[in-house]
Structure formats: C-alpha cells, structure tokens
C-alpha cells in the first residue's frame, strides 16, 4: 500500500478532540507533519529491521490470549499508584493524587484548560525530535492521544509514582501521552508496569530542569501477542540527571524509542534495557542521545536474550555537537542467543563534531560461553540452572543501571520467572 494512502486511512480512523486552543495548535502541527511525511514503511532506513506495519495498520489487533489481568509488578513497593485500564484513567482504582510537591492532571482535563502549565510543553519535545529522523508514530500520538498524565514535580518526592496499565479488553488499541516536568532541584521516580493494550502507542515527554533528577523504570507486559511502540523524549538542563530502564519480556513487536537532548552542562543520562523473548518475539531499541553542551555524560546499556526465532534490534546513536567538549559517551549493546533460529541486528552509531571527547561503543553477540558452562556443571550445578545463572549474569550489567535495590530484585525475579517458564516450554 502506498505510504500516503496508508497514512490517510490511519488518520481517518481517529478524530481531533475539542480542547483549549494551545492544545489544538499542538495537535494540528503534529497532524500536519504526519500528513506531509507519512507513516514509516519498510523502505525507510530507520525501519530497516523492524516491520512498522504492525503499528501502522488500521485493522483491530488480533485477539490477544491474555494470560491474566495481572497486578502491578511493583505491588509491594510503597508508591503512589495511578491506574489506566485499557488506555483510560481509572480514578476509583487509583490513589489520591493531591500530594505536596506533585501536580497531576490527566491530559483530557489539562488540555481543556486555557491556562495549564503543560500548555508550553505538550508536544514540544515530540516536535523537536522530528529531525533528522522522522518519528511520525510519535506525531500520530501527539495528534490523537486523548489520555495520559500531565505531571509536574516541584519537590523531592520520596515515594515513587507508579503508573499501572491494566489490560482487560483483548483487542484494545490505545494511544497514551504523558507530559512530565521536574522543576529545579526536584526529583521523582516514575514506575510504569503492565501490558497497556493489545496494541499501544505510548509517549512520554520529560523536562528535567536545573539540578533535577528523573528516575524511570518501566516493565512492559508479558503477553506474547502484544504490539507496542513507545517514545521517551527527554530534555535535560544544567546539572540534571536522568535514568531510565526498561524490561521487555515477550511480545510480537515492541519498539522502544528514546530521544535524549542534553542541553545543559554537567548533566547525566543513563539508559538501560533488558529484553528477553522467544516465539516470534521482535524487540527494537532505537536511541538517540544528543550532547549539545560540554561536560556531560551518557550511558546506554542494552542487553537482549533471544530464543526460538526471536529477533533483537538495537539502533543507538550518540551525537556530540560542535562545542560539546569533555563529553563522556558510552554505549554497549549485546545479544545472547540461546538457539540457532534467533537473530540480533545492531547499528551502534557515533557522530562526533568535538575533539576533546571520550566516546566509545561496543556491540557483541554470540551464544553462552561453553567454558563457563562447563565450569559450572563440573561443580555439580545442573545444566539448566547453570544456563540461567549465566543468562542472569549477562543481563546484570543492564539491571545495575537501576538505582533502587528493591526494584532491582523485582526485575531479577521477573527474569528468573521467564527462565523457569522457558524450561517448561
């Protein structure tokens, strides 16, 4: 199907909501971009390894065999819980949102107000991230997403804010758009968990102001049929820091895009991801970190364990602009293949215009080290257990990017769980 035709069909399946003039302006601008550029297709270099048709199609997603409607993986953590059910905010299941230092509105409410703080932020990072690579699935989200949260943090928040996505309708197709602003000297941890929907397009715009901290841990659901595309756009000012970790277990096609713009000195951005999957699993991490100022640091640590015909894709880019001296940029992407049918496709990229920098990337892939396996089995550890140990050790570098120890434990147990199921299947 020609690109424009498909785009037109997709657009006509949605309608623009009636909102305050600033919101309409943002949405129209995104829509305009989407109309002129069109949805991605397989011929786009940027979509070389992942088939965008899963996300583009107007067909209802296939019926999902959802194993269960699970509770949040972060259930046992002391947190502020906000629940979305099939893409819609569910107030009755959510905690009280009136707390000191936090301002939360759903965007369906915020976008109606003429004077909402998010007026200057909604769709802004999505728009600025359209060059040099078009991200029209994000434009689609800005144009039509009616749900999501506008979160403003003005203080240091101890309790993490947890967003739980429940999934009950097995053919749901949702768009969610979050706008988060962390004011000067403030800090927050945002946890996301759950399957969202059969097909989902989630977007998060994060503004990290001076000396602010943003911590983000995301656990995507476990369904094998899940189709998800996510965008995380972050803008970092002076002395700020962000950390984001994503765990992906199973799914049909998952694409996680990250665009981080470092716009102040002495800032840090750490991105990490662990993905495990089998049976037609296709997972793609596409990252763009732009160093626009001197003395900043960025890390990208992404690990994938693949089995039974799974595909892991990594496209990561570090851009160091002219003048961003003393940049420390590091990127590692690794694939571990447990059998012969899987594939790992990586494109780690560096684009550097400043000379006094330390930038490096590494990418490896292969099978479990037989020598290590032999060592463990020779000490009486059963084969399956030895394999699990080595797989967990492999993923550990990425998991260590999470600062909170209790969350690290939770993530670790989810991975162990996956491995136990693997032995049964």
């Amino acid at each position, binding site marked *: 199907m020609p690109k424009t035709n498909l785009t037109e069909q997709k657009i006509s399946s949605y309608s623009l909501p009636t909102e305050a003039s600033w919101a309409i302006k943002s949405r129209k601008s995104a829509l305009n971009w989407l109309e002129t550029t069109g949805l991605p297709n397989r011929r786009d*270099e940027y979509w070389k390894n992942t088939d965008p048709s899963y996300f583009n199609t107007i067909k209802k997603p296939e019926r999902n065999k959802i194993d269960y409607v699970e509770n949040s993986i972060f259930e046992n953590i002391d947190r502020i819980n906000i629940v979305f059910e099939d893409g819609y905010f569910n107030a009755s299941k959510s905690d009280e949102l009136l707390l000191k230092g936090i301002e939360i509105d759903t965007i369906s409410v915020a976008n109606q107000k003429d004077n909402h703080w998010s007026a200057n932020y909604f769709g802004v990072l999505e728009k600025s991230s359209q060059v040099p690579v078009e991200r029209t699935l994000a434009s689609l989200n800005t144009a039509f997403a009616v749900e999501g949260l506008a979160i403003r943090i003005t203080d240091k928040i101890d309790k993490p804010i947890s967003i739980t996505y429940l999934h009950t309708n097995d053919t749901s197709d949702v768009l969610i758009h979050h706008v988060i602003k962390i004011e000067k000297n403030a800090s927050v941890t945002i946890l996301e968990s759950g399957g969202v929907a059969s097909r989902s397009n989630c977007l998060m715009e994060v503004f990290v102001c001076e000396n602010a901290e943003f911590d983000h841990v995301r656990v995507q659901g476990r369904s094998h049929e899940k189709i998800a595309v996510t965008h995380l756009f972050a803008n970092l000012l002076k002395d700020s820091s962000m950390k984001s970790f994503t765990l992906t277990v199973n799914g049909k096609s998952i694409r996680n895009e990250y665009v981080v713009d470092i716009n102040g000195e002495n800032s840090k951005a750490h991105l990490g991801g662990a993905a495990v999957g089998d049976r037609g699993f296709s997972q793609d991490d596409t990252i763009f970190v732009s160093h626009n100022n001197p003395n900043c640091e960025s890390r990208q640590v992404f690990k994938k364990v693949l089995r039974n015909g799974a595909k892991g894709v990594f496209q990561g880019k570090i851009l160091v602009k*002219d*003048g961003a*001296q003393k940049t420390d940029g590091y990127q590692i992407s690794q*694939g571990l*293949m*447990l*059998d*012969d*049918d*899987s*594939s*790992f*496709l*990586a*494109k*780690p*990229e*560096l*684009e*550097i*215009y*400043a*000379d*006094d*920098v*330390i*930038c*490096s*990337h*590494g*990418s*490896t*892939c*292969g*099978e479990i080290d037989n020598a290590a396996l032999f060592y463990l089995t020779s000490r009486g550890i059963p084969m399956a257990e030895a394999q699990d140990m080595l797989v967990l050790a492999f993923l550990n570098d990425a998991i260590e990017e999470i600062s909170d120890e209790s969350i690290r434990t939770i993530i670790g147990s989810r991975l162990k769980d996956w491995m136990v199921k693997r032995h049964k299947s």
Partner: protein
Amino acid sequence: MSNTDTYEREGVDQDTVEAVRTVGQKYKYGFSTDIEMEYAPKGVNADIVKLISKKNDEPSWMTDWRLSALKRWEKLVEPNWAMVNYPEIDFQDIHYYAKPKSMEKKPKSLAEVDPKLLETYEKLGIPLKEQIILAGVEVGVDGTQEQRKVAVDAVFDSVSVGTTFKTELKAAGVIFCSISEAIREYPDLVKKYLGSVVPQSDNYYATLNAAVFTDGSFVYVPPGVRCPMELSTYFRINAENTGQFERTLIIADKGSYVSYLEGCTAPQRDTNQLHAAVVELVIEEDAEIKYSTVQNWYPGDENGKGGIYNFVTKRADCRGDRAKVMWTQVETGSAVTWKYPSCILRGNESQGEFYSIAITNNHQQADTGTKMVHLGQNTKSRIVSKGISAGFAQNTYRGLVSMHPKAKKSRNFTQCDSLLIGDKCGAHTIPYIECKNNSSRIEHEATTSKVDDDQLFYCHQRGIGEEEAVALIVNGFCKDVLQALPMEFAMEAQALVAISLEGSVG
C-alpha cells in the same frame, strides 16, 4: 627548528623524521602534463558508449553488455545516504573518454610511448621502465634474500599505457594486462567473470562504470600458481573535465596467490573531477588475494576547491573453501570518498580482512568502510579501521558485518578508532551488525578521541615540534594498518600520513 637539528637527534625514528621533512611539499602530484589528448564529446548516451566500445575494439557482446548497463543506469537515482555533501554532479558535463594522442597507435614497446607520458610517470616516481626494480629487499621464509620485483600496469586518463614484465609473468602462466586487451584476447575468461561479483545493476556508480568503463587491469592467476611478483597499477587522471572509469578484474584460481597494489594521483585543478571505478576479485578454493591501495587523488585546496570525487565499488568474492582476501587501503586523497571494499565469504573457512586508514584534512569528506558477508561455515573476518580527521573534514566509517543462518561458527572482530585533530572536524561511526545464528560471534568496538595531551607533552619535552609530534603519534595510531601493507607501500603511506595532516595543527 632547522632540518639539521632533526637529523642530529637520536632515538627518533628516521623514517618519521623523513616523512615530516616532506611536509612542506604540499600535494606533490598536483602538476599536470601538457599532452595532446583525444576526447569524446561531453556527456553520456548510447552513442558515447558505442564509441568507447569501438575505440577499444570490443566484440559485440561487450558493446551490448555496456548498453544494457546504460539502460539500467538511466533509471537509477544517485544515492544520498552517505554522510558527504557536494554540489550535484552534472553527468552530462563530463568527457567519458580521453586518451593521449600519442597512443593512437598502440606502442609496441615502452620506447614508443610519448616521452611526456613517461616524464609524468617519472615525476610520480613510478618505476614504469623495466630497469627500475623497486628498492627494498625481502627476506624470504627460508631466510634467503631475493630481489623483489613489481609488475606495473599504468592507466592514464582512460587508457592503459603500458604493462611491464609481461613475458616473465607469462612464463608463470599469469595473465596481467589491460582489461581492454583481455576483452579481445581472453573473451571466455572475461565473459565468465566480468560483472559476476559486482553485477551491472549493483549501484548507481557501478552501473555507470559498467556502461562507460574505458580501461583497467585484468589479472588471472592459474591454479596452484604463486604469482612471482607483486602486480601494481597506477591510475592517473590528467585531462580536465574528464571522468575516470576503470574496471579491475582479478581472478585467483584454485590454490593461487597474488598481491596487487594500486596507486592513484591526479593534477591540481579548480574543478571537481569524477572517478568511479569498479574492482572485482574472484577467489577460488585455497586461493589468496592481497589487494592494497594507496589512494592519493588530488584532495582540493585548503578552501575545499577542486579535488576528485571518488565513488568506488570494490568487492571480493571468496567462492571456494579456504579462500582468503585482504584489503588494505590508505585513503589520503580525494575531495569526497565513497568506498566500501567488501568481502563475500561464500566458501567454508574462507577469510576476509580489511585494514584501512582514512585521513581527511581541510574540507575533505570520506565515507568509507567495508562489508563482511558471512555465508559459509567457519568463516572469519577482521576489520581494523583508523580514521583521522583534521581541519574542517568529515570522516565516516560505515560497515556491515552479516552472519547468515548457515554461516555457523563464524567469527568477526571489528575495531574502528577515530582520531580528531582540531575542533571543527567530525568523526562518525555507523556499523551495521547482523547476526542470524547463535554459534557465530561478533565483536565490535569503536573509540573516538583526540591526540593525547600527555603524549604530545612527552614529545615536546624531548624537543620534538608540534607537527612532528602529531605525525609521530598518528603514525603510531595507524601502525596496525601500516604493518599490513607491502613494504614499499608502507613507506609511502607513512610519508603520506604526515603530508596529509600538514597545516592541521598549531
């Protein structure tokens, strides 16, 4: 600091000092020779293609082959994915055929060649005449010393002007001649292999080359023969507003070995000139080809005016088991380079190696790298790429390592390092890694840094000047690749490294 000081100092590698001393010479191949030329009218169309074919006395199958390529080319669009910027090329404003007039009648021996031509080669320092056997004595494996000979084929603008050591090669059974001669003399071999590695429709420039290539070298090494000497081609663009389109085809039959060197230069001109070559290597079972290039086309002046656009397609096909290919390149010239020497590792246990130094200075742009396509089992590849960027230059490594599902137990190691000299230049790395089976291993690492202050300080402390010190450090940075070059080339390359970086510091 005077040169005598340089000589008196001990402990500094004499070669490096020598190399640095030549720094003042700028682009020493920038002269042009005033030779009467015969041109085809500007532009490319079926008539021009027929004319080129006729000038080369080609059989009709070759003319048809060219015409079908032209037909395809007319439908293609110029690629724009490379990280290079240049004004649009008017492909109809180029002479596709230029030939020194004195070559109208093919010279019977080198003595009949226009002395001006020989003069040009003299200036280039090419040992075209038989008596010049390149200096440098190699110690053989058994410890005996033998004199090293190099057979040379020289291509001047569009035509090959002379090939040396023909008889000696013939005795060994090696065919080394210009491709136009091969088309006439060995049509079966040419028919069998031409376009089998780089197909006509491969890419925009390769297709254009297939239509309008004027000359180039042809090598056939029969089964079990170890080519007795190194083969070498010198390419020279002399005439203004011409494009050079040469085609090289090298076939190493079962169990044979050949080492091939390629050098290129061009005069200093204000306008940009186009060079679009195709190199095809066929490596059969147990055979090995070593292909080394020192590319030193005119890079343009300090303001980025003039220079060669170098759009080259090079590919090696390891068809048989245990076939081996090694690409070594030193890229110092050209205003714009677009070049990816590739290896198709089809045979089981075949090996591909790629060693590259790409140096860009002033306004030069290079987008270069390699492709390693692993198809056979137990195949191995190794990539070592060193990019050096100075002035306002942009240097990109772009590569592909692909392990196909059947390429079990294959291995790749890639290392690409970039060095930045100055804060106005750029260094970029764009590797593609595709692994489709689990028993293969791929490792890729890349680093980007500047010339280390500590190292510079150390050199200064010992009284070594800024430029000298940088040349010294850069030569050290490139060592892995320089070591892979044949000896004669290694010396030249080392000197080139210093010359190319002239004016980039201080």
